[in-house]
């Protein structure tokens, strides 16, 4: 026995949540492109499984730009006001399984020793409803990093598009249950995801190669086409590096947290002028090492869900999968 919900029932469930003051984010179409956006009516969303998205769902947990506190000078004193707690319930619907899988990957980082309440409060208040994939493209490689087209990691409910205007609902958590309870009907229809994308490299072996080949000239060679724009980091569901910047004036202003990217030359530039990662090759090495060596060393997860958004967005047809393939071909398999 399965549970199904029609598209109209899904939308009315979302409208009901919106009317209760809940924030809802869903894929919104802009011409041929779809991106996750906050919506005010369920009709604004486009509810079908997609391979390519213009962004990931991470910005509903880790916004591009977020105020940490405000300050005002009063004579020689400075009065600080904390940013408000995140207290709204939030639903992110239409996530790809590889978007949702990034959340458990990021949990230990934001909860490592010091607790980042900005991420953690959003995480606790958010219900993630994912769509199982119905197709993959040449950029997808979730299977290489432990994912799949119907990966349940990070989702509160996984929906399978039945192709007849309805979805099979697989509730995974209490939050998912709370959203769908009483909204679904019994059925004998079950959904199916697409075949897993195929890859002919093994990430473990590449990670070992990265560990052993810090000084390889391959890093500079494969990075020649990278222009250091950072788009790969901004579309990545797991990239979390950030900058902290003061805005406003000397007398009144705020501290904000902004997304940052290790591909930009300023990222590690010291005040002295020294830069430990002064070339694009060193910066790509950092990106790949962070994803496949440093992060697993620290937190047991690859910092990558194989979504392929980086290479889909790259103006130079670069990104994690092409880099892994190049390292595999010219490093691992060439025995270098």
């Amino acid at each position, binding site marked *: 026995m399965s549970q199904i919900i029609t598209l109209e029932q899904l939308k009315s469930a979302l409208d009901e949540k919106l009317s209760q003051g809940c924030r809802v984010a869903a894929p919104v179409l802009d011409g041929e492109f779809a991106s996750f956006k906050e919506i005010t009516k369920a009709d604004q969303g486009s509810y079908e499984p997609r391979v390519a998205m213009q962004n990931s769902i991470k910005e509903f947990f880790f916004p591009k730009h977020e105020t940490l506190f405000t300050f005002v000078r009063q004579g020689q004193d*400075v009065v*600080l006001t904390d940013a408000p707690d995140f207290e709204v319930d939030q639903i992110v619907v239409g996530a790809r399984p590889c978007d949702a899988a990034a959340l458990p990957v990021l949990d230990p980082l934001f909860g490592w020793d*010091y607790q980042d309440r900005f991420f953690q409060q959003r995480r606790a208040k958010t219900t993630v409803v994912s769509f199982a994939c119905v197709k993959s493209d040449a950029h997808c490689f979730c299977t290489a990093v432990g994912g799949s087209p119907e990966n349940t990691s990070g989702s509160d409910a996984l929906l399978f598009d039945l192709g007849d205007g309805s979805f099979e609902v697989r509730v995974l958590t209490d939050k998912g249950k709370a959203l769908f309870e009483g909204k679904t009907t019994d059925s004998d229809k079950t959904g199916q995801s697409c075949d897993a994308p195929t890859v002919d490299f093994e990430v473990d072996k590449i990670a070992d190669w990265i560990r052993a080949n810090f000084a390889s000239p391959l890093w500079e060679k494969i990075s020649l086409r990278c222009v250091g724009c950072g788009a790969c980091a901004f579309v990545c569901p797991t990239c*979390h590096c950030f900058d902290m910047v*003061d805005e*406003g004036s000397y007398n009144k202003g705020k*501290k904000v947290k902004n997304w940052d990217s290790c591909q930009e030359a300023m990222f*590690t530039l010291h*005040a002295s002028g020294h830069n430990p990662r002064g070339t694009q090759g060193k910066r790509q090495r950092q990106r790949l090492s962070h994803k496949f060596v440093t992060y697993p060393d620290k937190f047991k997860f690859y910092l990558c869900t194989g979504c392929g958004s980086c290479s889909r967005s790259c103006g130079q047809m670069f990104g994690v999968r092409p880099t892994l393939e190049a390292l595999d071909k010219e490093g691992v398999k060439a025995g270098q």
Partner: protein
Amino acid sequence: MENIYKPDPMEVLGVWQETGDVKRVRIRFRDPEKAKNFHFNVGQFGIYSVFGVGESVFNICCSNSHQTEYFEFCFRKVGRVTERMWDVEPGDTIGFRGPFGNSYPLKEWEGKDLVFVAGGIAMPPIRCVIQYCLENRDKYGKITIVYGARTVGDLVCKDELDEWAKYPNVDVLKTVDVAPADGVEWNGRVDFVPTVLKDSNVRGGNAVALVVGPPIMIKLSLPILSENGFSDDDIFTSLENRMKCGLGKCGRCNCGSVYVCKEGPVFTQAMIKNMPDDF
């Protein structure tokens, strides 16, 4: 829930100009409760802010013996934040987050001879531990301090060097790269730090060395220490890297899998040899 990114407002108690472009600042918490409960370990660092301008990372440069009353940091005027920090006066407010990172293993160093080697602006991260060891003089063996700067005018904590030399069993060997002009008072050497270190005849075995300074000074000092019997486990340094959060999250201060902000800033030479050359 606590906001880990929000600094504490600190009152500036005093400002001392150390060189043409280095100042030392003494601060305390504006909140008396925070001040009363504040504790840091010698060698830890903080993140200091000029509100509306930005934050910078500096070691806490004094011992922790007055930690509930005040602590200090030094900075060189070199960028946007420090240009504005230069103008702070007693009574002004700056921000502080910390203390962060690990610290010097002062307990393990008890009973041993100590060799401190510093160059230029690297005196502050060593000053804290020198102060601590002198305050606890009985616990440590012979103390040798080798400190150099480009010119006499670039020496940080110059007056304190002479005070330290008055303690029993303490050698202060100070040097400058460039001979002082006529009329400039100077009772130290004119040589590079590694040369002075070599001439000092410090001996490893029951001794540890703490070496902080520009990369070239470190590079040339390490072989001298090795030749004199210091093992890689007995040589310490304090690293610095660009940081934003200091909390192991913002993702930029790592050398390979080591986060300088969390696992550092204090490392032994043995640990550094195991890290990739990401400096």
